[in-house]
């Protein structure tokens, strides 16, 4: 059974088309990743699914409840961890959890029991009675997730769960989320602009660009669909634009982009193509510092389906 169904959602804010026919489905019990650069429409999709925003067109349902016609049932079924956190910084961790439980309709001693349980599971017990404003970024994010789980929802929405965390806290959060996905019988919709995060946590991903899904499947299948290898050349002294031109001119090289001081391309056979690429660059007076040949990544999948560079789109989309 599908826990989330999204069909042709459209939404325009002023003159920005945030959603342009967004469609995908998530089976119950699955961890599903919405992967895309900033501004691709991931958060807007989540906001429609958690009943905060009303779509202009299309339909969506969560756990069988239509988000527009029956928002009350959707709200009882879901946990939502917003990108902007939304915890009360002046209150303590425990107070935040208890209030969240009460707003979800929990009553009596069950509220305190559940709060204690979550404080324990998320390693927050020691700071349970401290105001949230004294928490570190990672600790606060763990509290956010715990709050989303307070009433044992069927579907959990995690909007950019690790954005703004330092690498260490991000790794800890990934462990936490992996454990969560394994332990609870929960459907999770996760949005991220970190390719690695989608690769690691999501069983299926939908790659999103400009308000619609451009590719969907298991990460390994998406990558396998791309033939050949990814070649990345790090340039000795810049000139990526000129290098880009030269590599694009070579035969049997496709989907070439420049990314900082690197030129990234796909070829049929990495080992065979590299000498030709290096010779061409060298001939133009652009020495290469390093070359890597690898299987295509989700960056290549994005490029293949949109014709654009993921990281450039991400920066253009703003924070």
């Amino acid at each position, binding site marked *: 059974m599908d826990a989330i169904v999204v069909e042709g959602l459209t939404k325009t804010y002023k003159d920005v088309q945030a959603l342009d026919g967004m469609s995908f489905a998530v089976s119950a019990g699955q961890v599903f990743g919405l992967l895309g650069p900033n501004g691709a429409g991931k958060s807007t999709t989540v*906001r429609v699914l*958690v*009943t*905060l*925003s*009303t779509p202009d067109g299309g339909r969506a349902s969560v756990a069988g409840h239509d988000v527009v016609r029956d928002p*009350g049932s959707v*709200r*009882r079924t*879901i946990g*939502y961890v*917003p*990108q*902007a*956190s*939304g*915890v*009360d*910084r*002046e*209150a303590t961790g425990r*107070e935040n959890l208890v*209030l*969240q439980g*009460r*707003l*979800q*309709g929990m009553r009596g001693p069950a509220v305190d029991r559940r709060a204690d349980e979550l404080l324990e599971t998320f390693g927050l017990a020691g700071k349970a009675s401290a*105001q949230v404003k004294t928490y570190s970024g990672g600790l606060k994010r763990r509290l956010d997730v715990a*709050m989303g789980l307070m009433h044992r929802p069927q579907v959990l929405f995690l909007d950019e769960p690790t954005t703004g965390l330092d690498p260490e806290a991000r790794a800890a959060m990934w462990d936490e989320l992996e454990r969560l996905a394994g332990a609870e019988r929960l459907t999770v919709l996760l949005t991220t602009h970190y390719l690695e995060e989608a690769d690691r946590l999501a069983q299926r991903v939908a790659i999103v660009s400009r308000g619609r899904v451009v590719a969907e499947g298991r990460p390994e299948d998406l990558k396998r669909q791309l033939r050949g290898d990814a070649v990345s050349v790090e340039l000795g002294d810049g000139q990526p634009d000129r290098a880009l031109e030269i590599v694009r001119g070579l035969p049997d090289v496709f989907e070439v982009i420049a990314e900082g001081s690197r030129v990234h391309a796909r070829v049929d056979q990495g080992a065979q193509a590299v000498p030709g690429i290096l010779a061409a660059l060298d001939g133009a007076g652009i020495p290469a510092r390093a070359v890597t040949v690898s299987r295509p990544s989700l960056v290549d999948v994005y490029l293949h389906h949109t014709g654009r560079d993921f990281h450039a789109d991400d920066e253009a989309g703003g924070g």
Partner: protein
Amino acid sequence: MLGQTFFLCARVLRNLARQPIWIVVMIVQPMFWLLLYSQLFRRITDLPGFGTSSYIDYLTPGVAVMTAFFSGSWAGMGMIEDLDRGVLERFLATPAHRGAIVFGRILESAIVASLQAVLILLTGLVLGATNGGVTGWLVILVASFLIAAGFAGLSHGIALLTRQEASMIAVAQFIGLPLLFFSSLLIARDLIPGWMRTLSLLNPVEWAVRAARGEALPGTDWGEMGAFVALLVAFAFLMAAFATWCFRSYQRTL
């Protein structure tokens, strides 16, 4: 919905109780007004029209109302903070009653104003104002509660419409002093120019002052007092409805 209103109100009150400076100012400020004005205008009751020779008797209900109406006017700042921090959106993704989110905030202002009114009455008592005893006190508390609730509703509504601290501050400043001076809060009605006196009858602050003072001063007119309390109740409900309407219009922008 009542339960949720209570929990949401308790949340804000608890956060306030954690701010020692806020508590000190909330306690000291009204006492300060009472002492300052009663000294500044001490001889004013030599003029006719106050109905009492003790200005402190005249002033105490006024300061209670002024404090309530000021703190109500500024209440929207808390709403903007919740908006900015995403707290409101998190509440909105739960099945919590939409009204409870607004009413919890309004109730907070009304409760704080009532507590401040008690302190003001005690200070007044020390300075020699009895304010008509138990019934007088009760009426003052009711008037403070209602006027704070009404202006908190207005303030939260404006906060939800503007969603900007600067705009919110401008509006609170703009309505604050004019409403104070278009009332008999500080000065006897007979001493106010006729056109201002007429206009003041449209001012909820004047309704609260007249209601609060009704029993505190000799010659209680229960009918008039009841009418002003009724107007205040209507004002509080109207403003709560306004805030709820603004809340819906905010939701539509999401």
